[in-house]
Every structure is written in C-alpha cells, then in structure tokens.
C-alpha cells in the first residue's frame, strides 16, 4: 500500500507542497485561486472521511455533521461573541473532536449498516437542530464579516490540508496506529485477542477523522462568509466526500486525494458549462459511484497499485526462476 515508494515519498510531498505554494503566483486571478482552495478543501474532507471509512471500515454517512459543527462554532464565536477568526479555529476543531469523542463511545459499537444508519440519522438531527436553534440563526443562516483575501484562505487551507495529510500519512502508513486500525477493520475480535483495545482505537480514529473536518468547516465559514443549515450540514458534503474516497480508493490516502481532484475538476467544468442543469450533477455522482463499486471496487488508486504490485511480483518471479 504505497509503502514501497517510501524513499521518494518525502521528496514528492515536498515537491507538491512547493508547487502548491507557488500556485498563487502563477494564477493571479481570484477565480482560479478560489477553485484551488475548494479543491484542497475537498481533498481534506475526503482523506478525513477515509480515516474512519476506509482504514477503520466504518462507513460514516454523517461526516458532514463535523464539518457543520466546525463552521457553526467559528460563525457563532465570531458573530455572537466577537472573537477574531484565527482563535476560533482551534475551537472549531476541538468542538468537532469532542462531539466525535462523545458520540463515538456508543455509536462505534455498532457494526456495518447499523453504524451507517445511526450516523446518518444523527447528522440529520444536527441539521434539524441548526434549523431550530436561535443561536445559529435558524433557516436564515449566519452572515460573517467578509474578508476578501483569496491568498490568505488559499494558504490557510493549504497548510491545514497538507498538515492533515502529512499527519495522517505518518499515523496510517508509518506508525503502528495504521496497523491497529486496519486490524480492527479486518477482524475486530482477532484484534482484541491480540491485546488491542478496539473501542479506544476506534474512538481515536473517529476523533482523528472529525477534527480535520471541523477545522475545514471553520475555514469554510469565514471564507464563504455565509452559512446556513443546508449548505454546511447538508447531505451533499458527506455524499461528495464518500464518492471521492470510493472513486479514488478506500483505505489509502493518495486515493481520496486523487478522487477529490478528479471529481472536483469535473464538477468545476460541469458547473461552468451546464449551469442550467445542476441536478444532473447528482446523477453523475450516482453513476460514478455505482460504476466504481461495480467495476473498480478498489478505486482508481487501488487498481493502479495492485497492477503495479502484480507487475513487480512477476518481475521477482522471473528473477528467481
């Protein structure tokens, strides 16, 4: 799983990071930067979904709830309590993590489909709650002060998503934590028999998946400067993150990033040329995910990877014989 390119990995990351840092110098117009920022945002959401969905094997149909919690924490702290933007961000991440921690204890006991339905209903309950509470502005949403500086948001998102990516890469691909969550995905009782504490590891993974989503939600709220329950708690956030991850390949980190870029690039082109038929996008999402599940259950990156592995092992075989 990507470990065999380990030697060049760090160099590759550094290269991508520098290239992204220089991006605002090349694309000077705000529109391109906006698209780049949103692409980064989706990469962040997809890889954070993958921590619980792909690595731990619990399909979370309520990931958008963490995004919405982060967005609303930032908005409420800024508008109702007069905080500056940057101090709200850690709290947005912390809030999402805390919610994940609290609901994780009971919810993560559930298996497969039960977990999916429970998280889905919980996310819908959060959306309804945001529609009804006074502090969130109800269905009118919240308007934040506008800060028109695309470079700032681009760099903030870049640092956040790259930081998340590197941290997750370390935890999932290099440290023992990755093996622990994967052993729980494959066989929970087996993992327990080997002396692991599944509850603890699952909650750690869940919090690890929720915190980046909350942080990204916080940035998103200040960036678009208007949030309402459908836009931050809506199904489409979770739906897109899932489709991107499955398209790219679950249980890897590069896969969801690739899936996010493919789908987001497609969406951008689609939005620009076919803005009259925006609901067609839903159909395309559905077709993409159904075809991926049917023909490429491992996703784009998983398929490439297994092809490379296959070729490598063939080469080794011929060397031996």
């Amino acid at each position: 799983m990507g470990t065999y390119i380990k030697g060049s990995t760090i160099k590759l990351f550094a290269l991508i990071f520098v290239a992204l840092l220089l991006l605002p110098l090349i694309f000077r117009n705000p529109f391109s930067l906006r698209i780049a920022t949103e692409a980064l945002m989706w990469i962040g959401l997809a890889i954070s979904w993958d921590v619980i969905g792909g690595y731990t094997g619990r399909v979370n149909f309520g990931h958008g709830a963490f995004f919405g919690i982060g967005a609303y924490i930032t908005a409420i702290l800024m508008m109702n309590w007069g905080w500056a933007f940057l101090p709200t961000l850690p709290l947005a991440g912390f809030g999402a993590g805390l919610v994940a921690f609290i609901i994780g204890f009971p919810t993560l006991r559930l298996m497969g489909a039960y977990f999916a339905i429970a998280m889905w209903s919980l996310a819908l309950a959060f959306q309804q709650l945001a529609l009804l509470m006074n502090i969130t502005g109800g269905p009118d949403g919240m308007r934040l002060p506008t800060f028109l500086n695309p470079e700032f948001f681009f760099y903030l998102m870049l640092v956040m998503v790259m930081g998340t990516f590197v941290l997750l890469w370390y935890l999932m691909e290099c440290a023992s934590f990755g093996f622990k969550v994967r052993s729980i995905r494959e066989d929970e009782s087996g993992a327990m028999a080997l002396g692991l504490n599944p509850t603890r590891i699952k909650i750690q993974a869940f919090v690890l998946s929720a915190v980046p989503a909350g942080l990204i939600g916080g940035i998103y709220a200040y960036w678009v400067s208007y949030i309402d329950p459908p836009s931050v708690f809506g199904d489409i956030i979770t739906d897109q993150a899932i489709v991107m991850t499955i398209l790219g390949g679950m249980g890897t980190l590069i896969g969801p990033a690739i899936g996010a870029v493919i789908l987001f690039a497609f969406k951008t082109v689609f939005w620009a040329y076919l803005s009259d038929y925006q609901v067609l996008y839903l159909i395309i999402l559905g077709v993409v995910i159904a075809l991926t599940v049917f023909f490429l259950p491992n996703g784009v990156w998983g398929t490439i990877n297994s092809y490379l592995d296959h070729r490598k092992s063939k080469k080794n075989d011929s060397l031996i014989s």
Partner: protein
Amino acid sequence: MLLLLPQALVDGILIGGVFITIAIGFSLAFGVMHIIDLAVGEWIMLGAFLGFYLTQWTNIEPLLFLPVVFAAFGIIGYFLQPVIFRVISGIKGDPVLMGLVFTFGLALIFKGTGLTIFGFYSHSIPSVFSAGSISIEIGNFYLTIPIMRFVGLAYAIIITIMLQYLLKKSNFGLAVRALAQNREASGLMGINPKKTSSYVYAIYVGISAMTGVLIGSIFSLSAQMGARYTALSFFVVVLAGMGYLAGVPWAAFLLGLIQSFFLIYFNPGYTLIAVFSILYVVLLISPKGLFGRGW
C-alpha cells in the same frame, strides 16, 4: 388540550398505516438478502410520479393504477436484483459496505433524474376520496377523519395481510423464509436462491413504489421527498428489528403517533429531531429493535 387527544390518536394510527407499507417490503428484502437499500425513499418518489402522470394522462382514479405501478416497478426490481447481488457478493471489499455504497449511488441517480425530469415543484394526486372527510361529534369531542387517510390504512392492512398470507401459506413463502434462515441449506433443498431473491426484491420495490402513489394522494409528492421517506422507513425498520416483519406495524403506528402528537401538542418543527433522536437511541440500546427479534 384533552379534547384533541382522540384526534391525535386517530391521526397517528391513520398515518401509521402508510408507514407500514413504506417499511414492510424493505424489511422483507433485508431479511432475505441483508441489503440495506438507501434508495427506498427514491422508489417511493418514482412510484408516486408514475402514478401522478398516469392519472394526469388518463384522468382515471389513481387507486386503480396501483397494480400497474406495482407491476412496472416489480419488473425493474426483478432485473436490478442480480446487479446488486453481484456487488454484495464480490470478492473485493466488505459486502455490507459495498451494498450500502452501491444503493447510495442508485439513490443519487434516482434523485437527480427525478429533479431533472419532474422539477422542484410539489404536486398531489387527486383521488375521489381526497376531498371527503367524516366528522364525528360526541359530547365535547370532535373527530375528523379524512377518507383518503382511512383508505391508506385499509390499503396498508390489505397489503400486510396479503404479504403474510404469501409468506406463511404458499410454497413461494416457504422458500423465502428458508432463504432468510440459511442461504446454502435452502439451495440444497432445491430452492433457487437467485430467482427467489429477485422475486423478493421485485415485491419490495413494487410495494414501495405503489405506496408512493398513496402518499402522493394523501400528502403530496415532489422530487425531493425521497430522503424524508428513506429516513422514516429506516426508523420503522430499525425499531421493528431489521427483517422482523411482525414488528413493522407496531413501529409504524408508533411513528404515526409521534408525528401526530408533535403536530398537535408540540412544535411540529421538532418532529424530525424527535424521530432521528429516537432512531439513534434505539440503535444504541437495542440494535435488534424494540422486540429484540431483528438481525
């Protein structure tokens, strides 16, 4: 406040009737194939629109089209089942997960198609029973029963009895029950698991779509209604216990009562929060449902 109590009870039971039929097929399909179909609400939506257009073109009573809708969607379900079966029995990946994600994709396709073709507007299917209602007055108590809702309850009872009869008395039902118990063993006993599963899926899709027509004439229909009914259907199926058919009516009546009590006594805006919170809590306390008989 007390004066409204009989109305709340009657409303709840009448609405609950329709909720039986949005969940009973789903529960059956889960019991046999262990598929969680995230598209259940979208089947209801598509069925409702088929009924709506048939009624518009022909101007005939929509309830007469119920068998047509059942047959049309039954055929779709029959041919869709092998595809879903291939997805959930693939070597790659966790079958439950793959099934969830695949039907989720189907739900997106149906929703997108519905919004593209039918637009965002809300419609209703006019039936001869739509306008009428029965008023009962006993002392200080007033009771209004819309006839259409009563028809809905009658329809639900008929469907439930027919399904029970089919499952308990016919050879096909024996095959379905055997299949739900043990797939391999039933195959050894001469049951064709693939074909039986296809028929079960056809029945499920057909019942769901047919119920859509009824929902369209009792409440309303729009292309966005799918998610709401998926949620309600999950609620009923989980509370009843996944795959435990006998629990479905009780869970459905409970849901109906929750809705009518929130509508009359509390803020109706809190209905969905209550529904989702109860669903969540029941899943945590007893994932096998209120009766502990589900999978």
